[in-house]
């Protein structure tokens, strides 16, 4: 998996923006899934599309992976036009789709080997690559088991391993950990970190802000087919939120007090109030002094969830 030094030199002189989109749109009939987005993904970075379901993330990913044509705008992937050079681009890209599409009646090993063949690799090379990827995905002991009965986490790891069979320069992951338990997610994140260290450029869509914060160097927040903001996770938090957040939970049905004057901004959610402030403990003390008695209070750092709430007025996961 680890790239050889010589590979790095091969990369010199190649395009540095692996993806360049300008005013990119995608319509399905009268439905506008993507409404004119500008995106640049640089070589070696982990880039994220963060947004709720239906934000246009997957449509964008399918255009970048050259399986779905664009409706309008410009798109260059690896310096080439997907419209013209689709197969050539796909030969150098790895794709992890939102839903696993493994050959469930084949073994784990056969899935990897046959996928290598699709890239025109020799049988011998496919066998070697399969062994290497089995180890990477920690599936060596399941190599000759059928895929169908494997756990969700194992299937996901196999899908990711399969996407690496052609040593892609660019790896597209569409909601890589949706539906997995925490342990399986952490194992996957660890594998993705290793890929990043090895110089693979990652593009990840997710509606989990912790995933975006963990994995992405830079991300865009998408909503309703448009880009609402762009930057590194910490930049976005600095720009759109305060350092800390005080969460106050009240009895259901009880009217929430007006606490605008204690914080820079207050968000009212169905079950709680979010007070955006530089010093959460200090604000909490002042709220208590004022005689407000919440059922529960919590001081935490601002997260991308808060950025999203600020930008769209909605929470990410409903």
């Amino acid at each position: 998996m680890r790239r050889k030094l010589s590979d790095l030199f091969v990369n010199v002189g190649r395009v540095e923006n692996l993806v360049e989109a300008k005013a990119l749109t995608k319509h399905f009939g009268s439905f506008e899934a993507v409404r004119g987005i500008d995106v640049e993904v640089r070589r070696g970075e982990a880039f994220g599309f963060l947004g709720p379901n239906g934000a246009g993330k997957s449509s964008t990913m399918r255009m970048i992976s050259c399986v779905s044509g664009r409706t309008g705008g410009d798109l260059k992937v690896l310096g080439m036009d997907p419209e013209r050079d689709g197969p050539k681009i796909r030969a150098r890209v790895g794709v992890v789709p939102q839903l696993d599409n493994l050959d469930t009646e084949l073994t784990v090993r056969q899935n990897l080997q046959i996928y290598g063949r699709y890239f025109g690799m020799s049988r011998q090379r496919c066998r070697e690559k399969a062994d290497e990827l089995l180890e990477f995905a920690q599936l060596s002991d399941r190599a000759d088991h059928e895929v169908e009965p494997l756990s969700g986490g194992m299937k996901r790891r196999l899908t990711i391993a399969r996407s690496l069979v052609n040593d892609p320069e660019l790896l597209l992951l569409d909601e890589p950990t949706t539906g997995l338990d925490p342990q399986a997610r952490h194992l996957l994140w660890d594998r993705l970190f290793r890929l990043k260290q090895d110089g693979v450029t990652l593009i990840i869509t997710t509606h989990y802000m912790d995933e975006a914060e963990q994995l992405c160097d830079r991300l865009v927040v998408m909503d309703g087919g448009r880009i609402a903001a762009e930057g590194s996770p910490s930049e976005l938090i600095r720009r759109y939120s305060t350092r800390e957040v005080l969460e106050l939970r009240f009895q259901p049905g009880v009217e929430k007090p007006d606490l605008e004057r204690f914080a820079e901004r207050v968000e009212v959610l169905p079950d709680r109030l979010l007070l955006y402030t530089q010093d959460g403990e200090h604000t909490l003390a002042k709220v208590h002094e004022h005689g407000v008695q919440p059922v529960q209070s919590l001081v935490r750092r601002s997260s991308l969830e808060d950025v999203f709430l600020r930008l769209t007025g909605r929470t990410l996961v409903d």
Partner: protein
Amino acid sequence: MPTLRGSWFALEKSWTWYRRNWRATAVSSFLTPVLFLVALGFGFGSQVQSTALIGGVSYLEYLAPALVVVTAIQGATFESTYPVMSQFMWQKSYFAMVATPITPAQVLYGQMLWVGSTLFVKSAVFVGIAAALGATAGPGILWSVVFATLAALAFSAPLVAYSARLDKPDSFTTIFRFVLMPMTLFTGAFFPVSQLPQWLLPLVWLTPSWHGIELARGTAFGTLDLLPALGHIAYLVALTAGGVALGVKFFHRRLAV
């Protein structure tokens, strides 16, 4: 990737599947035709008197080449329905294939190559078994392998295209009952179509099985002239080509949206 190479890799996937799962299908694909041959050819056939209408040969020999054809068409029908739909809907493995340099058209070509090659092999095995059982009149029956495969492709190609458009498998049962079954029974495999009412004949002429049976039986007994033979072949090739053209369109529409 060159078209043929891409289609070859798509075919290899089905072959990989078959190598692993052949036991489950072997029984149905080889035993069923043998049972039909034994029951209808030897059993039922023993009670049938040969007539000039069936060329004066024994009913068993009359039946054998046609049975190769209708069996191939049945096999093709099953290969062209659920497995195709599954790879769009349930396993979604076609979508995995088009994320590689393989194109939607090559996925379809691979599927058609798979149907063609498996039915060629199965038909050849069937003819071998029929010969071993003494059900064949002469070496002419070897042609049945070719024409059974061609007739199977002519039915499979439009059916694969149709399967690529479906979102649920309900209509497959209708096809099995109201297309496949009558086509198996009434297009000349078990009795000459001249016994059918006149008005039904144009419908029979539309079926790939009638053309396949005419070719297989005609070559088995050396009774077919060149011109009609070319006509039958042209019709089956046209059905196949038309089906593939539609399939390319529908596969693209489904896989590249």
